[in-house]
């Protein structure tokens, strides 16, 4: 049954691929604006690259949150999902996983191309991909709580960003920190381990909180 949640959301993402692609394009364009704006100052660009890529990833993943529950809420399919004979925890986990597969993964895989614009060394590009692969699921999981809480509210989009962005800060610090460390040639393991810990923590708690928020929103 869990498989069906993922299959369903991936099929829907495929049918609405313009939305998916526009989030990805948003990420690419935001990151690319910085080298164009600052000019060819390699040292400065290399210094700001981790922060810029990570902040853009944060914003892009926040944009994709709107798709997570809002459409299902409007056409009544979310009610049906709540009434399926499986824990709501798993339904939420399936939906978040599908969202991550179509937004987080392509974003991470695209990031080395963007890193080259900033003159990042090869090992830093590798760390960038790894840190995004570890960090974007955390962003999706935390974001799902905000998306569920603001479901059906007017101006929900803005409210989500106010709710969710502060919670993204630890991910930003450790994600950008890992890439920073690899540029400085110091150990990246600490930051990446902490990102991994955040992932485990949010895998356990976020779907549970989202499930509770969904029940309240649908009352």
């Amino acid at each position, binding site marked *: 049954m869990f498989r069906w949640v993922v*299959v369903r959301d991936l*099929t*829907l993402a495929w049918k609405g691929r313009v939305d998916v692609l526009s989030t990805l394009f948003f990420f690419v364009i935001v990151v690319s604006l910085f080298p164009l704006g600052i000019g060819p100052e390699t040292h400065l660009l290399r210094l700001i690259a981790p922060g810029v890529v990570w902040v853009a990833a944060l914003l892009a993943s926040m944009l994709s949150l709107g798709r997570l529950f809002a459409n299902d809420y409007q*056409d*009544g399919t979310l*009610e*049906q999902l709540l009434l*399926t004979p*499986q824990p709501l925890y798993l339904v939420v986990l399936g939906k978040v996983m599908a969202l991550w597969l179509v937004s987080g993964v392509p974003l991470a895989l695209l990031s080395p191309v963007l890193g080259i614009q900033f003159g990042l060394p090869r090992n830093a590009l590798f760390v960038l991909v790894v840190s995004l692969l570890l960090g974007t699921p955390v962003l999706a999981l935390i974001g799902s709580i905000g998306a569920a809480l603001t479901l059906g509210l007017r101006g929900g989009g803005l409210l989500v960003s106010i709710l969710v962005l502060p919670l993204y800060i630890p991910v930003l610090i450790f994600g950008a920190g890992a890439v920073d460390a690899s540029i400085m040639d110091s150990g990246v393991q600490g930051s990446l381990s902490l990102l991994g810990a955040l992932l485990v923590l949010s895998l356990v708690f976020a779907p549970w909180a989202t499930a509770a928020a969904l029940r309240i929103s649908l*009352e």
Partner: protein
Amino acid sequence: MLEVTDLGCVRGDRRLFSDVNFTLSSGSYLQVQGPNGSGKTSLLRLICGLLAPSEGHIRWQGANIGSLGEDYFTSLSYVGHRNGLKEELTPIENLRVTSGLSGTQLSQQEATSILGKIGLSGRDHLPARLLSEGQRRRTALARLMTCETSLWVLDEVLTSLDSSAVRFVTSLLDEHLNKGGIAVVATHHELDLSANSYQQLNLAS
């Protein structure tokens, strides 16, 4: 068996109904009536467990539905006044996904034949957004033919259906009740059912 005792519903600061009592044993049908805004939908959502009751109890096979959790949903089918279809998906895909989610695997052929029975043959490869309101409603109702649930909760399902579709739904309900199922239906239509236990609940009084 579904037992509802002293059920009341307050939405915001408005009391919709109070002291609703009924017991439905297997094979019985309950028609919920009442003017607009009298709380028909709220009552049905309470029965589904989508709303938590502010007063009173709802018991399924003797146990409070709140404590049953997901186990309750294995015996429940709900068709709301929103159809619960994805506009982008075809009726076949919609049907396969919803039945997959409730634990019944449905092949392409099975889905096609079920949709054929409900009068959607030839239309089952179009995205649901291209279908008429009545056809979408039929697609939503097709879900009932795939499941083995014993409690059906249907909210205003007969609106925008033509007379042949209403007859079909009636026969579907009849079959369900004869197999020992229970149905709670909010509708203003008096259905011509052969069920031996036909109860009515009017929320206006």
